[in-house]
Every structure is written in structure tokens, then in C-alpha cells.
């Protein structure tokens, strides 16, 4: 019948056209890479850049990935958490750990050709300490002498930052703190005075301001930011340390699943991956997987304001009751290490003789009996959900605690709510777990969480731990640059905290990086915060697949 045949014809016709289309598509699918003569690298950005502003968004790891190639810092932290000079030939720390002197290289130039001088460094410090600029370093740099007066507007410049000569800058602190060098200076990108001094201070933190003023002194120049898609940087052939080896770098914003797919295809060269993806990628011949010890600690703090948590035997029971080694193997496939104190790095500071609190439920029960623990008591445990390995371990921990007679009730809360509860110093929670931090970069980092004058809501000591000996030791530890003295001090701190256990430390997870084997000279660090510290050394040798 005519009507059936004509309908069939239409369908066949459409299918035919579709087939032709598919054939054309397959035929033309090649030729995606740019000119083969250019050396181009593709790096993964795990989140959209917050603003690419070296003043206000340099606290975000993904922004730093990009900023690390465009700007320099006076010093940077290497993948082993050592302080390495970046925009300085050398630096000096005074014996009382109060004065830091930086000697700038004499041949450093900005992307527009003008020379980098001490004026730029002084200008940068002043901008970063000015609360109106939106700088997130105002707190970290407030140890500098004269910072408080400058913040209140009593002085027009920060007194503690002085230009000694054209290429030398001296920074003086209010009180001795050798950790300032490792914790504050590497976070500060050096900015060009001649480009930014004409911009009103309160607009400097605006993301738009920097789009056309991204003049840095680093090995790569900013080309463009295709909003929420990718950032492109191009080689700076006049870089003062020498010619960078790559021509172009693209930082691509992708979800982790797509990033893993692109790594397999060879379209992406470097990406941070999870433990589950790691095993899949390690099987590929063109990818190497590097598991780097991290600087953050997954831990659970006790609210020591609660009277029933004040017996240290109860707290130690927690550590014995939870099988930390076992959980690490299960949820993170062993990509991490169990730790027993907040001082987990650098290597010289780690006390090897701490009590490991090996999984021992019987010992836990015994300690609870001695402390006369009431097993009918319910404890409220708050945490921020969203991290796969942590969320997977909570039910197991709850079960293991139940077996020794401790009842915990989990309360997942949003980040903003967690911050409100934990930092407000209230008693509506008993246990709080979280991760992150940069404990491994400098042993002094842990001080802010255990000093007795830092109790929340004033400071970050959420457990409200107070021990005069600890206070004394921490203050001594940051007051001298001598490593041998510091080591003794931090060994003792670790051993006291290991026994008092104001916090149960679970583990320090590794940062896992998948790197295409054609990439040379890249040493990814244990934290996304410092990734790109060695961008100048990156090179490509060979094909991507």
C-alpha cells in the first residue's frame, strides 16, 4: 500500500542521512592537537578558579596552580616541605628568629620588561596587609612589626618591612617566629608596584581588576581565562632564571571522572586523582601514578569543656578502639599513613618513639572501666560530609566504638554550620572530625590548635586544651632557627600530646597524582596548595600516548 511504503521510505531516508553524517564525523574526528612544533602541556584544575586574583583568591589551591606559573614568591615550599628560594638569591634568618632578610636577584624582570626591585616587594607587603584590599593574608602577616598600626590606619606603611637597598628587603616581626618563613612567605605572590599602585586599594581584590593587569615575574605569561573552562598561559622567553622549556600550558577545569577519562585518552597530562581511580590509571602504559605523603591530618577533636571527656583514659580508649591501620587499607587502599600526633613533618621534626595505639579493643574496655565510663551516654559527633574515604569510615568507627561501650551519634552538617558550631566554642557537640591543614609543612602549625590562649571563639583551639608546658614548648620552638634545639622541643610536644590525646589522629592521607609519562621534571607535592612550585622545571619528552 502506498501509505506504508512512503512512511518506510521516509524512515530509510532519514537513517541514510544519519549514516552519512556519522561517517563524515568519524572521518573528520582527527586533527585535534595544535601545531606539533609547540610543546603544550594540559593540567587538570579540580575546581573552577575562584578569581585568579593573587591578592584575594590566592588561598584557593586551584587558583594557585595557575598563579604559580605567572608570579613568583620570595620562597616556596618544595615537595619535601623544604623552604627553597624563588624570587631571591638567598635569605637570612636572625638567631632570635625575628628578622628575615631577602636578597633579590639583580636580573629579575616583570613581563612588561621593567626590573623587579625591593620597592615591589615592599609594595606587595603593604597591599597584602591592607584589610581594604581583600587580601586573605592579613591574618598570617599580622606578626610583622607595625602591622596593627598600619591596619588601623595610624601609619601609611608597615613599619616592619624595610628596603635595605635596591635588591634587599628586611622583614621584622613583633615576636620571634621562625615558622613565619615557611607558612606566610610562600603564600604571598610578589606584585608589580608600577602596574598596581594606580589602582584604588579597595578594587584590588576584585577579580575583574586583574584580568588585564596580570603582570607577573614568573616563567609563564597569562593569555586568557575562558570562564569556567580553561586558563591559558604562554612561555615567558625573558624569564630571569632562563628560558622555560614548555611553550604553552592549559589548565583545564573538569570533573574528576572526565579528567580520568581524558588522562586515559592522553588529552590530559597531570591530574590529582582519588585512591579508587589510582589503581585503574596505574595499569595504563602511558601514565605513572605518584602517591605523595600529604600535609593534612584527618582527625577528631574532643570537646574538653564536657566534664565526661576530661579523663584522658576515656580519650585514649577511643584510639585503641578504632582500627586505624585497617581502615586506611580499606578506604584509602593504603595511600596514607597513620599518625599519632599533630607533628607529622617535615621529617626532622617527627618523633619516632610515640605510642602507636595499635588496635586493641580489650585495652580500650579496660581503660573505660578504670575511668568508670557510663556506656549509656550518647555522644554527638559532628562532621562535614562529602569526602568519600572519611564518609566510608564513619560507620565502621561507630561500630568499633559500640563494641567497647561508647555510643556515638553522627551529625553531618554543612561547612558553614560546622564552622559555626566548632569555632563558637559551644557545648552542643562532643566530638568533631575534620581534615586538611598543612601540619606537615612546619611543626609550629599545630600550635594554633593547642595553645591555651587560642581557645575558640577567639582562636582555633576547638578542643579547649590547656597545658602550660605545651604553651612554653611551642613558644620556645618558634623562637630559634636552630634545628637541633627545635627537634628536641617538638619531640617532647608530640610525646605529651600523644599521651594526653586532646584529639584522636586518624591518618595523613597521600595526595595521589596521575602524570603522563611524557612529562619530565614535575615533582608534585603532598598538598594542592603548593602544586606548581616547580613549574619552571617542567618539560615534555615524547608523545602523550
Amino acid at each position, binding site marked *: 500500500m502506498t501509505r506504508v511504503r*512512503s512512511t518506510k521510505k521516509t524512515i530509510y531516508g532519514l537513517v541514510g542521512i544519519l549514516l552519512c553524517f556519522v561517517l563524515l564525523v568519524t572521518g573528520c574526528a582527527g586533527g585535534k592537537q595544535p601545531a606539533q612544533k609547540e610543546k603544550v602541556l594540559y593540567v587538570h584544575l579540580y575546581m573552577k578558579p*575562584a578569581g585568579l586574583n593573587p591578592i584575594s583568591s590566592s*588561598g584557593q589551591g586551584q587558583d594557585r596552580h595557575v598563579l604559580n606559573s605567572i608570579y613568583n614568591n620570595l620562597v616556596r615550599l618544595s615537595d619535601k616541605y623544604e623552604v627553597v628560594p624563588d624570587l631571591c638569591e638567598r635569605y637570612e634568618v636572625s638567631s632570635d628568629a625575628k628578622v628575615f632578610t631577602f636578597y633579590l636577584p639583580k636580573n629579575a624582570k616583570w613581563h612588561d620588561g621593567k626590573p623587579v626591585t625591593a620597592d615591589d616587594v615592599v609594595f606587595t607587603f603593604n597591599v597584602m596587609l591592607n584589610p581594604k584590599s581583600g587580601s586573605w593574608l592579613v591574618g598570617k602577616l599580622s606578626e610583622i612589626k607595625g602591622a596593627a598600626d598600619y591596619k588601623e590606619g595610624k601609619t601609611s606603611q608597615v613599619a616592619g618591612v624595610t628596603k635595605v637597598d635596591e635588591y634587599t628587603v628586611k622583614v621584622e616581626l613583633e615576636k620571634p617566629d621562625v615558622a613565619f618563613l615557611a607558612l606566610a612567605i610562600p603564600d604571598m605572590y610578589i606584585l608589580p608596584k608600577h602596574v598596581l599602585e594606580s589602582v584604588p586599594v*579597595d578594587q584590588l581584590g576584585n577579580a575583574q581588576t586583574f584580568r588585564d593587569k596580570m603582570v607577573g615575574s614568573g616563567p609563564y605569561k597569562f593569555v586568557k581565562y*575562558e570562564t569556567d573552562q580553561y586558563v591559558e598561559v604562554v612561555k615567558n622567553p625573558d624569564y630571569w632564571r632562563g628560558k622555560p622549556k614548555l611553550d604553552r600550558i592549559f589548565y*583545564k577545569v573538569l570533573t574528576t571522572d*572526565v579528567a580520568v577519562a581524558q588522562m586515559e585518552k592522553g588529552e590530559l597530562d597531570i591530574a590529582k586523582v582519588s585512591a579508587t581511580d589510582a589503581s585503574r590509571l596505574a595499569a595504563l602504559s602511558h601514565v605513572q601514578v605518584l602517591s605523595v605523603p600529604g600535609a593534612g591530618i584527618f582527625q577528631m577533636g574532643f570537646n574538653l569543656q564536657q566534664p565526661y571527656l576530661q579523663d584522658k583514659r576515656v580519650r585514649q580508649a577511643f584510639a585503641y578502639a578504632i582500627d586505624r591501620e585497617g581502615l586506611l587499607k580499606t578506604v584509602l587502599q593504603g595511600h596514607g599513613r597513620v599518625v599519632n600526633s599533630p607533628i607529622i613533618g617535615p621529617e626532622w621534626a617527627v618523633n619516632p618513639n610515640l605510642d602507636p595505639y595499635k588496635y586493641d579493643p580489650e585495652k580500650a574496655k579496660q581503660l573505660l572501666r578504670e575511668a568508670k565510663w557510663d556506656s549509656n551516654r550518647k555522644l554527638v559527633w559532628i562532621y562535614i560530609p562529602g569526602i568519600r574515604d572519611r564518609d566510608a569510615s564513619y560507620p565502621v568507627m561507630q561500630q568499633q566504638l559500640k563494641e567497647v561501650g561508647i555510643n556515638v551519634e553522627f551529625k553531618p552538617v554543612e561547612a558553614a554550620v560546622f564552622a559555626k558550631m566548632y569555632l563558637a566554642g559551644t557545648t552542643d557537640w562532643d566530638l568533631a572530625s575534620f581534615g586538611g591543614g598543612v601540619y606537615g609543612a612546619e611543626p609550629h602549625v599545630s600550635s*594554633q590548635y593547642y595553645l591555651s590562649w587560642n581557645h575558640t571563639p577567639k582562636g*582555633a583551639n576547638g578542643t579547649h586544651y590547656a597545658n602550660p608546658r605545651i604553651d612554653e614548648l611551642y613558644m620556645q620552638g618558634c623562637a630559634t632557627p636552630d634545628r637541633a634545639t627545635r627537634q628536641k622541643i617538638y619531640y617532647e610536644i608530640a610525646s605529651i600530646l600523644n599521651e594526653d590525646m586532646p584529639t584522636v589522629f586518624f591518618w595523613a592521607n597521600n595526595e595521589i597524582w596521575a602524570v603522563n609519562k611524557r612529562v619530565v621534571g614535575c615533582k608534585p607535592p603532598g598538598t594542592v596548595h603548593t602544586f606548581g612550585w616547580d613549574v619552571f622545571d617542567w618539560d615534555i619528552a615524547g608523545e602523550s600516548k
Partner: protein
Amino acid sequence: MTSYLARRLLITIPVLIGITVLTFVFINLAPGDPVMMMVSPEQVAELGQEWLEARRHELGLDQPLPVRYVRWLQELAHGNLGYSLTTGESVAGLIVERLPATLRLLVAALVVGIGIGVPVGVLSAVKQYSLLDYASTIFSMAFIAVPPFFLGLGLIYIFALSLDILPTAGMNTVGVTPTLWDSLLHLVLPATVLGFGQAAQILRYTRSSLLQVLRQDFVRTARAKGLHERVVIYRHALRNALIPVVTVVALNIPALFGGAVITEQIFQWPGVGSLAMASIARRDYSTIMGVNFVSAVLVLLCNLAADVAYSIIDPRIRYR
């Protein structure tokens, strides 16, 4: 008709004000604010309360709610959608920046949706209970049920990884000057993910609506007159059957505009949906209000367009 249109447009104004008030109240009720969202909980302690309060003051967040709302409304009356609280860029600028991407995806998804949904729906209705009918029913059930995340990743795995004939993500190949061909290739997968969902819906509506119409007396009359079956279906029956389809498409347009978030996330498509999602997560009140307002306007306009379209398609419907 003109008075009808005028009345409808006048009513949209109080409706829009109501929507914006509700949005404003709800987003401010949610815990957290843009300043807290800019930093991680660990950093909050480091920065100190004064830094947070100073930034809040800068952004005008310490003013009472009604004052802030009225100020926003005043700016809107002057045609200014405000400035993002997190990046300082103009909200209107942010939305316009995303429009090309969103429009591309929207049009492509609708083309795929209508292009597949209507013809297959018609064929299904005409050949009810045939193999094609059962196949299309399975198709529509499947694609209404399958979540876009699963579909998207599955398609990427098959076509981009295993077969390597389509790109993985993005609107264009990074670093190369965009060509029409390149853009089309990148459009295929995301448009398929969204379009098949649309197609499944439209297919169901077309099919059931046409089935009803085909049972009507006037269709029997047309057949009895000796008209060609094709003419009966396409000239007489289909036009009447399209009314619910028009509703579905008209309502889907604003939904696709700001709602294709998951697809946009997977394929890294910089559309309005991901802008909305990101600004909600960051509690960027200005951007949320701006995007919501534009979305609301779009919904109201599309509804009005759908109603006007009825009166064009169906002579029985007339507005006074």
C-alpha cells in the same frame, strides 16, 4: 487579544515581585553567607572575626533584610541586576557571557527532542501496538528514568573513550581556533543527553494526544471523504494533537535554560545552569537573585507565548 496581552503583562509585575521577595527571603535564611563560603573552615579561624566582619560590611551584608531588598529592587528598576558578591563582576554580564553556550545547548536539545519526539510519537500513535510502538515506549520509559549523570558518563565512555569518535568535554578543543565543525562535534553528546530526555517526554505526549484525536468524529469524516491517510493525519489530526506538546515544549524551555546543571557539569559546558549552581553554593546572593529573576521572566514569557500559540493553533480558543 491586545487587551488580553496587556492584562497578562500587567499581572506579571506583581508575580515577579512576589517571586523575588520569596527568593530573597529563602536564600538569606540558608545558613552561611558569601564571606564564609570564600574560605575553608580551617582558614576561618586564621583570618579572624574582624576580617570576616570587614568583608561583610564592604558587601553591605550587615544591613537589615528589607533595606537590602528595596535597594536591590531600586537598582533593578534602573536596569541594573547588581554585582556578584564573590567576584565583583556585573551579574548581567555574567549571564550574557553564558548565554551563547546555554542557547546552543537549548536549541540543540530542543531540535533533537522535537525532531525525534514528534515524528516517532506520530508513528507510534498511527501504528499503535506495532513493533515500532513498543520500541518507542521502551525508549521513552528508559530515557525518562535514566539520570542524566549516568547517561552522560556512559556516552562519554562509549563514544569518546572506547570508540574515540567524539570529544570528551567542553565546547571547543582547547587551544585551537574554534571551527564550526569542532563546535558541532562537541555539541553532539551534551545535546544527546538533554535531547533524549526531552524526546522521551514529547514522544509520550504526542502519542497519547494523537491517539485521542484520531478517535474523534471529524477524523472519521475526513477519512470518509476519501482523503489520503497522510493528509488526514498531518493536515487535520496532528494540528489538534499538538496543543499539549506546545505546552510541554514551552515549559521546558525555561527548565533547560537554568536547569541543565548536571549535564553542564559533566561536559564542562559553561551555561547558566552551572552559574546558578555555583552561585548557590557560594551564597552569592546578587547572582542568585539575578539568575532567578531572568529565569522567572523567561517562565512567565514562555507561558504567555504558549497561551498565545494555542489561540493561533486552535480556532476554538479565543481570548477576550
